[in-house]
């Protein structure tokens, strides 16, 4: 399956109301991240850490918008506290676009990604955060399903993106 092009990815998210994004880059979605920075229809703030991105993007809720963050899964650890003591208790939805390094565990990817690569889904499950593992095939339906759950439950949600799914 051909990877999703940056223009297609952001075009679809913009059509779903995502216009305020903060994040930390990852090589999983290098071109997609680069195109985010230059997208005139998205306000992008380059965060200094993943929890900072989450704090920033959460502000969009109060302007009746859906904020998004884009991070590497190593940063899941940095957002656990703000998720549990902020977004989940105040019920503030934010779309978390997460590059899935270390998918499948060792020997894939570098050693520092082995454990989080294996544990990323189970951490999200433990926190009762809805998530989808994105595939290029049928990605629109997958994202729409996640956004519907996030809206109905007023919860943050995550898209886990493996290498090769988006450019």
């Amino acid at each position, binding site marked *: 399956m051909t990877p999703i092009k940056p223009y297609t990815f952001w075009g679809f998210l913009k059509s779903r109301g995502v216009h*305020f994004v903060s994040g930390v880059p990852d090589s999983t979605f290098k071109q997609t991240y680069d195109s985010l920075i230059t997208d005139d229809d998205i306000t992008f703030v380059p*965060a200094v850490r993943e*929890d900072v*991105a989450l*704090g920033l993007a959460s*502000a*969009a*809720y*109060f302007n009746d918008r859906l904020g998004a963050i884009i991070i590497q899964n190593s940063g899941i650890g940095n957002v656990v506290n703000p998720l549990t003591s902020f977004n989940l208790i105040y019920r503030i939805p934010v779309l978390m676009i997460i590059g899935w390094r270390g998918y499948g565990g060792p020997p894939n990817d570098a050693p520092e990604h082995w454990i989080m690569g294996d544990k990323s889904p189970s951490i999200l499950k433990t926190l009762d955060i809805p998530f989808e593992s994105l595939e290029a095939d049928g990605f629109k339906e997958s994202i729409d399903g996640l956004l519907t759950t996030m809206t109905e439950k007023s919860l943050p949600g995550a898209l886990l993106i493996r290498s090769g799914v988006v450019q």
Partner: protein
Amino acid sequence: MISRIHAIRIIAESLQKNDLVVSTTGMISRELFITDDRSGNFYMLGSMGLVSSFALGLALLNPSNRVVALEGDGSALMSMGTLALVASEAPRNFLHIILDNESYESTGGQPTITNQIDLAKIASSCGYQKADRIENGDQLSVALTNSRNNPGPRMILAKVGIAPVKNIPRVTHHPIDIRDRFSNAVSNMLPK
């Protein structure tokens, strides 16, 4: 030196209707809550260190409102990277107030490191338009007035004493009620 609750009273008196205030976890939110429980206050009950990034997002999205991030030295030290980001994004409507008692008072008064570290100097060197270090109530009033009449981002670092308010209640609003009240306040302030 003034007490923190006294500083919060002076800050509360200086607020205008359209100001959005985000206050940090622990005693600072509780003291703001008992001083002036206004709809434009967002009490961040947990997530120590997150106030400044959330307030930065609000400031960028609501450029016609003044946004005040109200936190302590412990919280500011936890997210020093955000000082650089605030300076880099440079919202003119951003006021960062740090009530610096050189301690984690909410957890029992353990010392921080701000007896040696000047957060106002750090904010200045990051690129805040102005960072006032103030030591008494009169200086605080002047700094608050100046912050309203001049472009931000600005910081007011208020050195305050350790003086716990006895029997201070927790914020009694449910988090979702805090969210919805603040959300309504932001909506009602949007330019018509």
